[in-house]
């Protein structure tokens, strides 16, 4: 066990995979100076500028070139800086990377990891704060990963780099400095296995990414009131751990899905609908209102799902 930040854990994962496989490389703007959040700091010294490569401000080319590079015997890690900027490269990801293997009849795979940091980060406003993970979960061919802890960020990023599918890998910007224990040695996590954050018999709570920690805080308060929360960190949105979540929901009879993204059309809808289709459990969701994210703190905070909201929501769900 080593104590590491979420950022350092990702860096360790990338470095280990780059040492293991000479065809793993990373490319994005400013990577040579460590990347915009420092998550690549020092790597160019070890691997050189060809494998920790700078890029022009050309998101479409960064993504598109990596599609070609992935089809030609390398395993690129694409850095998009903010997930918002990945909207400049959607054709390349959705029409090309996601579909190539299928439409070419299996002649090629596209082993690509697209790092797209998501989430609100104090006063970053409407174009630097979005969480669009549900978009990519809707796209056949893509894998979607949303790690919530340093340990997971290491094990999931390693798994993503070894995966032969295009993986949309969404780190949360607020988690970069978060510290946690990371197991030593080579650990890879399988996709589609949720983490049970805590056990509880009264209500199932499902979340991912930074919001998991807000849920854990809420679960603590609820425990003080005698309400046992079965809290799950989904870890990966596609594939997602239906078995664990449906089993838990069937057991508790109540499920609430919590996410930072806009609630309307968020991935919470998929989980809630699936639970409702397959169990008798009552479902509900807590996500952001359908509004862009504002700059001033009170405006930004108004779209944040807080621990006290989760607590109140869970109480209502149990009494309703």
């Amino acid at each position, binding site marked *: 066990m080593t104590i590491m930040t979420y950022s350092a854990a990702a860096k360790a994962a990338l470095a280990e995979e780059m040492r293991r496989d000479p*065809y793993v*490389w990373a490319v994005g703007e400013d990577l040579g100076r460590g990347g915009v959040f420092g998550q690549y700091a020092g790597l160019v010294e070890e691997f050189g500028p*060809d*494998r920790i490569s700078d*890029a*022009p401000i*050309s998101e*479409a*080319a960064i*993504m*598109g*070139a*990596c*599609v*070609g*590079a*992935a*089809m*030609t*015997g*390398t395993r*690129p890690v694409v850095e998009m800086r903010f997930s918002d900027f990945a909207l400049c490269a959607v*054709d*390349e990801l959705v*029409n*090309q990377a996601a579909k*190539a*293997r*299928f*439409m*070419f*009849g*299996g*002649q*090629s*795979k596209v082993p690509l990891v697209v790092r797209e940091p998501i989430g609100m980060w104090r006063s970053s406003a409407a174009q630097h704060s979005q969480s669009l993970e549900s978009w990519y979960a809707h796209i*056949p*061919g*893509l*894998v979607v990963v949303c790690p919530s802890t340093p340990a997971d960020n290491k094990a999931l990023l390693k798994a993503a780099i070894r*995966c*032969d*599918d295009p*993986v949309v890998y969404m780190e949360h910007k607020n988690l970069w400095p978060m510290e946690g224990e990371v197991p030593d040695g080579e650990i890879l996590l399988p*996709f*589609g296995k949720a983490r049970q954050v805590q056990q509880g018999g009264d209500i199932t709570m499902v979340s991912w990414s930074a919001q998991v920690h807000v849920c854990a805080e809420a679960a603590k308060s609820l425990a003080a009131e005698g309400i046992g929360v079965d809290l799950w960190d989904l870890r990966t949105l*596609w*594939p997602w751990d*239906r078995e664990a979540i449906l089993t838990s929901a069937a057991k508790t009879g109540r499920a609430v899905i919590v996410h930072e993204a806009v609630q309307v059309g968020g991935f919470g809808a998929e989980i809630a609908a699936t639970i409702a289709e397959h169990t008798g459990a009552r479902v509900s969701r807590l996500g952001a209102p359908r509004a862009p994210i504002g700059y001033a703190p009170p405006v930004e905070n108004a779209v944040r799902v807080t621990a006290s909201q989760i607590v109140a929501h869970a109480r209502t769900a149990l009494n309703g």
Partner: protein
Amino acid sequence: MSSLRNTDIARLRAHHRLMWRIRKLEEAALRGLKAGVVLGAIHPSIGQEAVAAGAVGNLRRDDILLSTHRGHGHTLAKGADSEAMLRELFGRVGGTCGGKGGSMHIADFSVGMLGANGVVGANIVIAAGSAHAIKLRGEDRVVCCIFGDGAINRGPFLEGLNWAAVFKLPVLFVCEDNGFAATTRTSTMTAGGGPAVRAEAFGIPATLVDGNDVQAVDEAAARLIGEIRAGGGPRFLHAKTYRLTGHTGVDPAAYRPAAEVEAARMLEPILRCAEVLRSAGLSEAELEADRGAAEAEMDIAYEAAFAAPYPGPEEAFRDVQDAGSPEEVAF
């Protein structure tokens, strides 16, 4: 022209054969379209065969090609099997993509053909990346990326060319300029000096060539690919040609005067190539043999493709992805 060396004649004859094979493949495809056997849209390259033959003919088998929606000729020139191609257009088992891609996604990775593309210009950045991988792997392969004159107005043209030049990648960009983007005369929607001027502005040496003169295309491509393989970085070839058919197999192309098309027909590449071969001493019978062989090949391929079965519905779930495959969880 009559002073052609024997090696040149043999090379030109091969172009002649290849151009006829492309022509006959597409005529077969158009026949299939009329008969309802070809599904979806097809974009014929009839009249543009010299670009495929001249440029792609200079690639090694392990070199890489990326093409457009109008990619039959390029694909055949790279070495794909005509029957497998027609099977693909007919949506059958044994198609290059197992019948799952069709004309707009035709690809044959076994001969280095990494795909037509349904999105104009999308292949340009992918090609740059394929070349990037070749450079990282330390190989001496070359990528050839063909796109239309309409594609130069999309962002990926800038981003892909700049990328290739910045990283000095082994890629030949070929603008197959047939004067039109669908029903629109490209000149009306393109500002400035055109493809080559833009390429030069992005730092890529550009060559202009008569795209209906297969020898000219061949010579230019040979030189440029040689420079690229020698480590010279990207090169650009602007080949002017003309599409003799409509944009798609069902487009009557009423947006251009008949006289313009007639004039272009006089300049089409197979005629011109035959003229040179004739003056170099080839007989009418020899020239006709090329045509006839191509026609026979495609007739046989057509029948074989037509006789092939459709893929089953289970193919809808195959080759999507490893993790969370729809073969395990589709909903």
